[in-house]
């Protein structure tokens, strides 16, 4: 079962992936440097499929899409935060990194979680608790279900709101 790694409030995109590494199309190189200024041991602890949980305003700062891409490439299966910076939230869904907003979660590092993305339900096995995520607009759920905006537009050719 995936375990969670918890970070605090206002984790900015400069800390998720420093600007000096963003100018590349080499996705693997992004994964290499993900979170390095924030947590130099990230790669030692993190196992592909694990979950990142955070506090308020995750992904604030720069609009760089390299931030969610780096997390996805490093194997992050889902990010759970109390709330997100808006550009990061849209970017994550657009590139197919699942993100859930759960304002009242009390997830701690090491907690084992079961996540139902489309229902927006997270079971914390360690704490024996269930959280529900804030509902997303249908267009976002549709994009997430398609695995990102590229697939969504390939299929639909245009946005569909309702």
């Amino acid at each position, binding site marked *: 079962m995936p375990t969670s790694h918890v970070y605090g409030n*206002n984790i*900015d995109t*400069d*800390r998720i992936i*420093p*600007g*000096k590494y*963003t*100018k*590349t*199309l080499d996705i693997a190189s992004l994964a290499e440097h993900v979170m390095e*200024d924030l947590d130099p041991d990230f790669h030692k602890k993190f196992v592909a499929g694990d979950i990142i949980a955070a506090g*308020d*305003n995750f992904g*604030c*700062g*720069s*609009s*760089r*899409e*390299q931030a969610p*891409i780096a997390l996805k490439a490093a194997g992050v299966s889902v990010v759970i935060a109390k*709330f*997100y*910076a*808006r*550009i990061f939230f*849209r*970017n994550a869904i*657009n*590139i197919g990194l699942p993100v859930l907003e759960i304002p009242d979660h009390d997830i701690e590092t090491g907690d084992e979680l079961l996540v139902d993305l489309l229902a927006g339900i997270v079971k914390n096995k360690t704490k024996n608790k269930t959280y529900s995520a804030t509902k997303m*607009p249908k*267009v976002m759920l549709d994009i997430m279900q398609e695995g*990102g*905006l*590229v697939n969504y*537009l*390939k299929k639909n050719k*245009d*946005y569909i*709101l309702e």
Partner: protein
Amino acid sequence: MPQTIAEKILSNHAGKKVYAGELCIVPVDGCMATDTTAPLAIKAFKEMGGTQLADKNKFHLIIDHAAPAPNERIANLHTLMRNFAKEYGCSLYDIGSGICHQVMVDNQKVKPGDIFMGADSHTPTYGALNAFACGVGSTDLAAVMLTGKIWLKVPQTIKVILHGKKLQLGVSGKDLVLEVVKQLTISGATYHAVEYHGEAVEQLSLSQRMVLCNMVAEMGAKTGIVSPKGLQLPYAFNPIDAEDDAVYSRVIEIDASSIQPKIAIPNSPDDVHDVSRYIGTKINYAFIGTCTNGRLDDLQAAAKILKGQKIAEGVRMVIAPASKQVLIDALQDGTIQTLIEAGATIINSGCGPCVGSHEGVPGDGEIVISAANRNFKGRMGNPNASIYLASPATVAMSALYGQITNP
């Protein structure tokens, strides 16, 4: 029902009246991407099956974040952008043109009442022009390139009223916006539009209005828009202002005339204090430039302080004019000469050391005072340096004395 400026602009584009909280699909009047975001946007555009741009006259590419290229990897990304522009017929602003936002404004690629999407988080800067401008990521931008449209949630609006006619000596738009960032905090305007009103705002130049909108990104806002009252532009335009009784989620009133010079201390732009509290803090490096404060009036403010003087020994000062136009203007009026004679190093127009890609990374343990908008850990390329944010006047004054000094 009366509307905010954001609601009005979005309604004008949606073809129906829309209000905060509603979703809408709107045509986009202009969009752009930089060398940080364009390569991914181009990749996504092609993956979406894009063979032509929805409107090649409305899409602009700017090479500014790491320009000229510091290494072969980035040089190849620049080549990719140049080739795309040639093949698809969009405009390309190559190295030396300047920072994306300044280039868009200098070249009148955004006008009052427009909806503009930029693949850069400081795109709200154009709200100074009474436009609705948002930062988006590369994939959202690719979809705009392909469809000419974007889906948006109409934001709630926070109204910021800056009262008072006369600002204190040495105070500029940067000090005002730092106070607003402090009050709203780094996440306080998430998903919101920030609308600026008030006497103090009405008398501000376009450049100073751009400072106010630029840093709404540091409040998490979707966009920032200044009331068109007092806005002077070299062409006729149709001003869009909020209606009386429009609904705001919050109203903040600030007496701008009593604000003292401000400084954001490491490592968050909302950790704002009066400069006077930090007087005497030694600095190693002073930087003036960026989309926040790299315009002609900013360089002139620094030159006024440094005229006939020399910056402190052991301090280096780097200046990156925001655009080629700014550089030319500052050359013509002698500003550049004054700054060079005072000991500053002038670098080409572009983002310069702002985002740590090249040109002036600070060393371990060094203290930087910068006129930029972000001081996150590692922002300028070294997580072991500390960054203070202040106005160009405060930066110049601090360079002169080698320590944080009130202008």
